[in-house]
């Protein structure tokens, strides 16, 4: 597949190379094709981004927004206040741990299922993919309610099943009263809707491993475990890196599930993650300046992860 692609590209280049004039024309045409997308991105992304950084440098609360008090330039004071606030570090730590659990969960479940799918016969394999895509396609909002109701103390099936199989103490157990079990329920929902991406990616990777390699190892008497750890995993490494970083980026940005399932961050904000924290500061707390500062911090963190992602992709040869 790649070979054909290479050859095709080589042929393409060979056709175009002789005339530099064509290149100049290319540039002008490219500008025309890219202009509409570029204008939109500048207006709806670049300009607000510039404003975000600006707002983060001011004292900008409700009085200033309604014009009752003058704007006051603070410089980096919002950031200094943020760094000095133990709540921020608590939320940041919660975000990192929570995202890590979700990422590891999606990777383990997704990869395991990709292996299962690659060994299954066509019909069960199709069923596996259909079920996974069903979970993937469920809107986050609907998924959040489904899982909320599943773990509901009164009408939830989870308690019913648990007490049914002998954990009688679980009847009427309130999962969403405890900080950690609340996070766990939300993580279960997130893993549920994000493992399909990992599964599909890994499945494509496993299918790309030449059968002869595995056959040869089997002939040499390698155990299934050895084949998995010494041949399949190393060959899948670039894809695993991509799926990992992609999952980090998603799970770091979780908003809907936390917002809906913990009712805006839980009692006293104990289930806040950075994304919801920024939202609460800016909208509910009406501290727009501080909300913007959190936004800038988040953007910087995500950009750093994204740069890692781009490098991983280039290494895997996936970048266009």
């Amino acid at each position, binding site marked *: 597949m790649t070979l054909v692609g290479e050859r095709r590209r080589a042929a393409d280049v060979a*056709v175009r190379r002789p005339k530099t004039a064509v290149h100049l024309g290319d*540039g002008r045409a*490219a500008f025309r094709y890219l202009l509409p997308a570029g204008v939109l991105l500048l207006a*709806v992304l670049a300009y607000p981004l510039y404003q975000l950084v600006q707002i983060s440098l001011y004292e900008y609360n409700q009085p200033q927004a309604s014009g009752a008090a003058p704007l006051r330039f603070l410089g980096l004071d919002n950031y200094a206040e943020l760094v000095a606030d133990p709540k921020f570090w608590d939320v940041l730590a919660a975000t990192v741990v929570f995202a890590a659990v979700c990422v590891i969960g999606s990777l383990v479940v997704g990869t395991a299922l990709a292996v299962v799918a690659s060994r299954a016969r066509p019909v069960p394999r199709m069923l596996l993919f259909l079920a996974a895509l069903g979970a993937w396609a469920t*809107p986050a909002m609907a998924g959040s309610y489904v899982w909320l109701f599943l773990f509901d103390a009164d009408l939830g099936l989870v308690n019913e099943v648990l007490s049914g199989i002998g954990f009688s103490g679980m009847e009427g157990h309130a999962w969403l009263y405890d900080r950690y079990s609340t996070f766990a329920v939300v993580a279960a929902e997130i893993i549920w809707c994000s493992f399909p991406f990992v599964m599909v990616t890994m499945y494509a990777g496993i299918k790309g491993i030449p059968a002869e390699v595995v056959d040869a190892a089997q002939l040499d008497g390698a155990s299934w475990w050895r084949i998995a750890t010494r041949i399949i995993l190393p060959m899948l490494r670039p894809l695993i890196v991509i799926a990992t970083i992609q999952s980090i980026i998603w799970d770091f940005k979780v908003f809907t599930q936390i917002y809906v399932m913990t009712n805006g961050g839980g009692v006293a904000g104990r289930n806040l993650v950075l994304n919801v924290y920024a939202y609460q500061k800016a909208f509910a707390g009406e501290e727009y300046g501080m909300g913007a500062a959190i936004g800038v911090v988040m953007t910087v963190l995500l950009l750093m992860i*994204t740069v890692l992602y781009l490098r991983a992709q280039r290494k895997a040869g996936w970048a266009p």
Partner: protein
Amino acid sequence: MAILQSPAGKKTAWTLVDIFVIVYALFPVLWILSLSLKSSETLADKSFFPTDISFEHYETIFSADVSLFIRPLINSIGISVIATLIAVVLGTMAAYAIARLEFPGKRALVGVSLLIAMFPQISLISPLFEMERALGLFDTWPGLILPFVTFALPLAIYTLSAFFREIPWELEKAAKMDGATPGQAFRKVIAPLAAPGVFTTAILVFIFCWNDFLFAISLTSTENARTVPAALAFFTGASQFETPTGSLSAAAVIITIPIIVFVLFFQRRIVAGLTSGAVKG
């Protein structure tokens, strides 16, 4: 472990794994379907299957004030469809340039579009809110369509350029040599080859818009532009402290089932789109 040694045991083990996975993936969706079909009296009976099928919750949400569910549903459909069309058109133009033309800064452009796809949308909520209020776009269809298109564009460009790179563009030249006009060459040769990629991208973008909750709650305030995910937050129970479980389930089913059916119907294309390095959003 012993069970895994014999071929028959192996087969049973794999079948069990299969069944477990399918249950894990499908069970929650089936359960909310069942919940939505229970009557108010049997809602908390904890049985997996509804004892008597009742459509009362569907009737409730459709017979209530239009602003509760019907209007948001129309908004959701309209806004998502328009945003998808615009994003696909702009994305196709940009992706064509990236796949077909040589120009300086091409590599950087792809990197930038990925950076945007990864961008935390939450950061832009406050500035966008201010901007839309100043421009009179707050709580209007364009007020949601603009951010949807913006954040879906990188996804569209990225997926489309991955597809476009695989198109044998020499065929266009060959068709022209055989006497086809540029228009014919495009319509008869290139368009059919590009269609699957464009279509897949449209599905991914539509799902992104349909699922959005963050923009929908921040940039709308009335039924004028409120979409279903945001509207669900305004469902109320019989009392303030009661969750309107039945209506929420029915509404969740209505926004979920069409998407799932759609995705299952086009599953091959979506899998291709996802593995082209696309992102969900």
